[in-house]
């Protein structure tokens, strides 16, 4: 918990009276805003577009954006604020000299926006962290909308908002209230009342206009489309049967996912658009990948991705490999028990890129990679409880579950 800073010593005058000095200071402050370069995601591009020559926010006195909060007095929150960024945002806000202002740009900073439901990391509204003066809705808002938001802020400053207090709330740690469910009962009552009033009004209308015959609804019929057959796209490189043959020589126990009792004929039947999805035992996992990488006929030198799937009773670690020179792909999957920390060999010696993919998989699923040089959490804080992409992950203090 962050202690509350002392309140501003300047007494706030009632809004009805404004002395000339206040007016001049307000006017000067409103026309020389110094925004901080703070963009986390998509809205930042629209903020850049606002600053560019077509929209040019310098017309409104928003001079050059500052990179340091110590030189700025306005944060335009352009983009989602997630929990890890929350404490940094408070630091930035505290480092700005007062009086300071905040514009919440876009749906994410207003309420969480598209990331309101089911997200375990997004803060549902930046005003849970720092006080916000102007809200600009949109996903993302157009540059014109942001300019309008700036003009509204200038209006506020002229009216005396330049005496902003410096108080801020701590990060919201209590269970998140689901406003949607809370409002539902209230909403139902209002709906009922509305229906009654409508009924009354309809009856009154019938009495007042006895000749009215109603109207016919005309529906706009859209164009009808026909089904189109998909264009076949054969996979490049070695044919899958040949690839399978080569693997079978070295690893006779190899299985293929969703093809029980696999034979060469069955693979040949799947056609040239099928990509081989082999199932390998834990002991053969590392030797197989090493063979795929080093064999002259295969040369699968490119790791597309490494990820996992939680099947509730077991995990599947899935590796996608590609041969850049020849063009063929292969999917390798290895089953792991559904423990607290299942373990598998690391591929980071074979592919340098596997390092980060494995860290990500560890972060999301809690799968340990033996021999990994630097197995830390990738995206989440070290004290984050549990691994979020597991199917049994529940965290009511962070996640608002979708009610429909």
């Amino acid at each position: 918990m962050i202690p509350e800073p002392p309140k501003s010593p300047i007494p706030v005058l009632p809004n009805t009276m404004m002395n000339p000095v206040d007016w001049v200071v307000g006017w000067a402050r409103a026309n020389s805003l110094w925004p901080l370069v703070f963009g986390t995601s998509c809205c930042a591009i629209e903020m850049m577009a606002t600053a560019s020559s077509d929209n040019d926010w310098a017309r409104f006195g928003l001079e050059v954006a500052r990179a340091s909060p110590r030189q700025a007095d306005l944060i335009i929150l352009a983009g989602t604020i997630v929990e890890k960024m929350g404490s940094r945002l408070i630091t930035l806000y505290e480092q700005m000299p007062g009086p300071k202002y905040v514009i919440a740009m876009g749906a994410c900073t207003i309420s969480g926006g598209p990331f309101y439901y089911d997200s375990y990391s997004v803060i549902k509204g930046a005003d849970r962290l720092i006080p916000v003066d102007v809200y600009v809705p949109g996903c993302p808002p157009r540059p014109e909308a942001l300019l309008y938001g700036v003009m509204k802020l200038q209006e506020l400053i002229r009216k005396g908002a330049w005496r902003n207090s410096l108080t801020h709330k701590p990060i919201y740690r209590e269970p998140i209230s689901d406003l949607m469910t809370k409002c539902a009962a209230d909403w139902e009552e209002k709906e009922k009342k509305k229906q009654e009033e409508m009924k009354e009004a309809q009856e009154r209308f019938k009495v007042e206009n006895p000749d009215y015959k109603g109207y016919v609804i005309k529906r706009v019929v859209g164009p009808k489309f026909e089904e189109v057959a998909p264009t076949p796209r054969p996979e490049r490189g070695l044919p899958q049967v040949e690839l399978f043959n080569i693997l079978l020589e070295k690893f006779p126990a190899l299985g293929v996912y969703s093809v029980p009792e696999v034979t060469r004929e069955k693979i040949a039947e799947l056609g040239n658009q099928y990509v081989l999805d082999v199932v390998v035992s834990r002991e053969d996992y590392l030797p197989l990948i090493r063979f795929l990488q080093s064999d002259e006929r295969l040369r699968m030198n490119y790791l597309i991705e490494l990820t996992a799937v939680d099947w509730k009773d077991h995990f599947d670690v899935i590796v996608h490999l590609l041969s850049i020179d020849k063009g063929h792909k292969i999917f390798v999957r290895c089953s792991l028990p559904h423990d607290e920390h299942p373990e598998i060999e690391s591929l980071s010696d074979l592919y340098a890129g596997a390092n980060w993919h494995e860290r990500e998989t560890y972060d999301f699923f809690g799968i340990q990679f033996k021999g990994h040089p630097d197995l830390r959490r990738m995206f989440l804080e070290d004290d984050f409880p549990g691994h979020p992409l597991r199917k049994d992950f529940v965290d009511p203090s962070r996640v608002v579950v979708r009610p429909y």
Partner: protein
Amino acid sequence: MIKADSKLLSTLPPGFALHDTGEDGSQEYFLNMGPQHPSTHGVLKLVVKLDGEKVVEVVPHLGFIHRAIEKMGENESFVQYIHLTDRMDYLSSHINNLCVCMAIEKAMGIGVPERGEYIRVMVSELQRIQSHLLWWGSFGMDLGAVSTFLYGFKEREKITALFEELCGARLTMNFFRPGGSNSDVPETFLPRVKEIIQDLKFALDEFDALLTKNPIIIERTRGVGILPKERAISYGCSGPVARASGVDLDVRKHSPYSVYDRFEFDVPLGKNGDCYDRYWVRMEEMRQSIRILEQASAHFPPDPYRSKEKPNYKVPAGSYFASVETARGLFCTYMVSENAMKPYRIKSRSPNFSNLSAINEMSAGGKIADLVTILSTLDIIVPDIDR
């Protein structure tokens, strides 16, 4: 060497120790870059170990914009997931949408009519140019030339306006659907594309005069941040970053999707894998995209723009994979379905994630100022890394 009980060490990543270097007892130090920093292009934190001005090691810290898109995808229908990919790599949002649509099409056996495919290719190429224009503007700005930002955005706004007319959005498009697109292109689409092509040809020459032959730019980018070919492959780099190192990986040529196999275009490849090559590859790619646009607009078919819409998108059980070439590289969608309306697991492979993982290799041994140049030529989009 700092003692283990030092307070300073607790803020460092594991295995990241500072050593004494000089004879005069001078010491390595570390510098925090980000998460709020103008040249990290978003909220990326780099912990840089420095010896004087020389970079010894760079450790990126991610997750400052991790929005749980993959978890959210498990609770939304397949078609609803399209709009979430807009918000990953928002400068390639059309192309990301296309990848999800292609995975659904593959799973359900949906075909796309001729006009739909041409719309896809043209819109994707416009998106690529738009993204590279923004990169060009911010690249100049990162190296200290503010005017490039204004030049880049001037051209970009023309394409943005075209997209707005096309689908009502400037950035988060949500335009493509399985079987084609959300709506047909307006009548003004083709004439406006032709206009944009003319403007762009002029603008690209102007850009060349401004930056490409600028001695300061050449001095700051040549031989800086070299990524050898083998390392680029090993790290899983893709897009212009890999192609600048000479890796011939462009999904449009490598395993053509949509109707890319009908157009003539070259894949520019660099030789040295330095910052200048990455710059040059992107400039050349814009020219190649213009070539594709010219060919596509000359043979724009009049057929229906989409195939028959399904009553619901219930994807049969199995796992499906589709890959496209975004402005930043190889973007893949891997989805696992259990014969339901919602995906059981959906994963997007982001090109930036792998591209950024090579940053230590590129910048170690260089100067701290070069780190900014390298970051800029990597052209990372942090929400795409964090997802």
